[in-house]
């Protein structure tokens, strides 16, 4: 009903006031498009800086792994506290990912290994660009694949044009959400408010409620509706459910706010957040240290989110990604340099978990990509495509990933 309120006072009202054609087109675009699966939410999490996949999902069954990384390898599972957490007798999770292990045990967590971009770039910039535009090795793509999804699929008839359909908990709209479909980027939910009280706020609003309707006035009215919608959802009073405790970190707080938005029913469909600090060239550590600390934050935040969401995880998929993996061999600074294939996690009620997906290419010298990196066996677009179609109900894959021929499905979703 929150949504209906918005549609009534927002889009429909605006449409009758003779708004500029461009604005109208944007507002009405969704109406003619096929409805998507109601209430489904995708949470995209980007590990910026290239996470070291080989120490995140540890191939402890591979002898070469220990030869390549004498100082930083994660020990094979033992009863000792700080060793890999066994998944399937070959792969294990970094011990800092212990908070995610229950999700694996319940079949809600699916790691994918040796996955990533087919581009051989080892530039953070280019690789993030490609993963977010969804077009590896094509620089000219101006929009992100998630925005193309939003633009191509519309929403269900009642919940369309929710201003919170796509939200990035970030200071600026990330590349993956840039494009023609409107999105909101904010550092924090309480930032989505007019920064002044009482009389001033009311008068600012009347500046936009009166006057000739045009692009600027229309955006203003839409915004004041959105602010009210969020206010009535009362994010200030939010208490996580099921005793979930989010880390105080930026990433933890962002996930907490994504959970708030989902539960407040403002029509969130796609959420985005990122977490930095993965560029571990120097002293990355093993079971403890730099990478372990990043993984602590990462895993505790995601685990708190899934606990908080509880049964609502049925409609939620969390998808994690990083621009590439890191070199198979450790470097001279106790770290790892830029590599090729990496690992992703897919988490959710509809996920066929408790299985490590992707063909394992091996770490023997002749199996390494360009003689140095984990080889790629799964294109990231295969994963994105399965989630876009299977979870969100997207149909126009050729629009999402132009020129991409989907290979065999992984079968991530039930």
């Amino acid at each position, binding site marked *: 009903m929150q949504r209906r309120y918005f549609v009534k006072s927002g889009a429909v009202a605006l449409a009758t006031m003779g708004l*500029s054609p*461009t*604005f109208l087109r*944007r507002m009405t675009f969704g109406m003619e498009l096929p409805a998507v699966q109601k209430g489904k939410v995708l949470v995209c999490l980007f590990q910026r*800086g290239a996470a070291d996949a080989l120490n995140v999902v540890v191939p402890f069954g591979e002898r070469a792994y220990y030869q390549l990384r004498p100082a930083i390898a994660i020990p094979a599972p033992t009863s000792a506290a700080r060793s890999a957490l066994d998944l399937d007798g070959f792969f294990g999770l970094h011990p800092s990912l212990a908070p995610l292990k229950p999700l694996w045990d319940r079949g809600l967590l699916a790691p994918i290994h040796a996955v990533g971009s087919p581009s*051989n770039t080892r*530039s*953070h*910039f280019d690789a993030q660009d490609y993963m977010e535009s969804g077009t590896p090795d094509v*620089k*000219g*793509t*101006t929009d992100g694949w998630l925005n193309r999804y939003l633009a191509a699929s519309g929403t269900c008839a009642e919940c369309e044009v929710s201003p919170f359909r796509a939200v990035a*908990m970030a*200071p*600026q*709209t990330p*590349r993956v959400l840039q494009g*023609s479909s*409107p*999105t*909101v980027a904010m*550092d*924090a939910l*309480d*930032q989505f408010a*007019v*920064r002044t009280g009482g*009389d*001033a706020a009311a*008068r*600012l609003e*009347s*500046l*936009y409620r*009166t*006057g*000739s309707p045009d*692009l*600027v006035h229309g955006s*203003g009215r*839409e*915004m004041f509706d*959105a*602010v009210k919608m969020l206010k009535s959802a009362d994010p200030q009073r939010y208490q996580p459910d099921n005793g979930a405790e989010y880390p105080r970190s*930026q990433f933890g*707080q*962002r996930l907490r706010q994504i959970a708030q938005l989902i539960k407040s029913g403002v029509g969130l469909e796609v959420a985005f957040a*990122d*977490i*930095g600090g993965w560029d571990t*060239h*120097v002293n990355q550590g093993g079971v403890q240290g730099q990478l372990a600390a990043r993984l602590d934050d990462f895993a505790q935040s995601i685990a708190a989110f899934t606990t908080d969401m509880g049964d609502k995880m049925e409609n939620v998929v969390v998808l994690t990604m990083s621009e590439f993996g890191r*070199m198979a061999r450790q*470097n*001279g*600074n106790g770290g790892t*340099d*830029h590599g090729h294939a990496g690992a992703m996690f897919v988490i959710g009620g509809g996920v066929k978990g408790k299985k490590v997906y992707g063909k394992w290419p091996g770490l023997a010298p002749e199996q390494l990509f360009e*003689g140095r990196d984990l080889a790629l066996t799964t294109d990231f677009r295969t994963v994105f495509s399965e989630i876009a179609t299977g979870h969100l109900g997207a149909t126009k894959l050729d629009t999402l990933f132009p020129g991409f021929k989907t290979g065999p499905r992984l079968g991530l979703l039930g």
Partner: protein
Amino acid sequence: MQHTRWLAVSIIALAACSGGPRSSVTAAPEMAPPGSGDREQTADQQVAQVLSRLTFGARPGDAEKLRATGVDRWIDEQLHPERIDDAAADRYLASAYLTLGQTPAALEQKYLPPGQLQNQAAARGGLTRADSAKLRESQQGLRQMTMEVQSARVARALMSERQLQEVVTDFWLNHFSVYEAKGPRERYMLGEYENRVIRPNALGKFRTLLGAVAKSEAMLFYLDNWQSQADSARPRLNAAGRAVAAAGRGGRGAIGAGGRGVISPLGTPVAPVAPGQQMAQRPRPGLNENYGRELLELHTLGVDGGYSQQDVINAARALTGWTIRGAQQGGGFNFVPQVHDAGEKVLLGHKLAAGRGIEDGEDVLDIVARQPATAKYIAFKLARRFVSDTPSAALVARAAATFTRTDGDIRETVRTIVTSAEFFARRAYRSKVKSPFEVVVSAARVLGAQPDPTVRMAAMVGQLGQPIYGHQAPNGWPETGDQWMNTGAILNRINFGMTVAAGRLPGASPMGFKDSDILQTATRELQADGVIHALLGGDASVETRAVLISGENPLAKDLPPMGDPPSDPTMQPPAAGRGGRGGRGGGGGVQPLPAIRGLQLVVGLALGSPEFQRR
């Protein structure tokens, strides 16, 4: 003095009483300037139009000066920035920034790339305490460079008397967009790119500008041409510039992945192991089409400019060997014949003979700069910038004709556009939505702000969604209103207006506008009209005026004391690194602004009004 000011206010009062559909509160009578019979806008609208399109916004007194000079003469003066004294801005910029005037090579020598430091340390057996200190110093230097170019960009836009040159510079920096977080080395290059490549050529010949960009370190690095080499199946040149046979078959994949024995574009062997940041930039031998493609698609012909994939490849082949000299050799553009593809190429029907060197690339630039599609594309983009989001085909055709007739003279092309009937048409007036950069700088200018030597004012541009040198893709920031306007954007703009009115724009007092001292104790109606006059070019809708007038009418004694603007913890410089990625400040809330009232609130409402979002 005092008398004149009171006079101005009483005229405002009179104008306000006269009513009418728009509360035009201007002091001068309407009259069309000579020789402008085809202009639909009133004289006052023309002044407002010129100030909002050809400058970054009116400063106190600018409208009066422009009126005294005359619109046409003022435009002609601005089209010749070399004749306008800009010493004050130059002096300020030279004194306020440390890294700005230095060459990329000097900066790179001083602040070695962190990856290189790490490699050196690794080669010696690991990071020592001294290495770590050096690493920190270099990382801080890199942050400083980005902050300085961002801050200086805003400062010059705020201060420069050569406003049209600044607006056109902004246009070209966006047309030839580069990204500060492409890699650490990009940051060494930004100051030089803006100050020596773009600005001096902004109103010159397009071919000269295009050539300067093609040879700039910033663009060579950003679009990877510096590491583009002839594929191994192609003939190359020797050091003396003579063609030699292909090195052998096998293509890119045949080169050892460790990089052993690979010749870098600099002609020196690449280190066998080049880990760290360097790995990302390690030249991988072979053709890189990035620059070749964007040269055609974004910089000259436009995406519909009638070129083929083969043209892209051949442009890239012709530009192989255009690279960057090492910092220790002084940096700068360098042509390396040994990696240049010396085979025959055909570009857009023009044959480039085999066996040549740097002249291949020069010919490519000559050819593309003079294509009719380029004239049309540049004319379209300039008309869209200056006149309307949807400029008429007739205006674009006239501007393209000027471009072609003058061999790509940007000054004359701009002149055709900004003196056109379309520029002075009623429908063009206030039809553009300001970019975030324009919002921030115009607010600072209208309040007579001092430049901010820190990055805080520039960071506000980023917070409004347009971080300076922060556009990742090579297509640059959007130019049309529908792309800048949405729920999040308008909220940020309204909050920005209230932030400024609360005295939180560094260097700016919310009472810095014209006649504010007199208005402090005036009636609410006079205050509203005075603010409309000073901040909104004397033109606001009846509804906006009504909102500005509404509310209590405070006495002067209730006003909060005006002092130096306190620092705002929410407006701290962005964290280091990747253009706002990751590690920026906590997810915590926003500090509430202090309550403002009276005239200060009228200023906040005006800055947050729909009118202020337009130009």
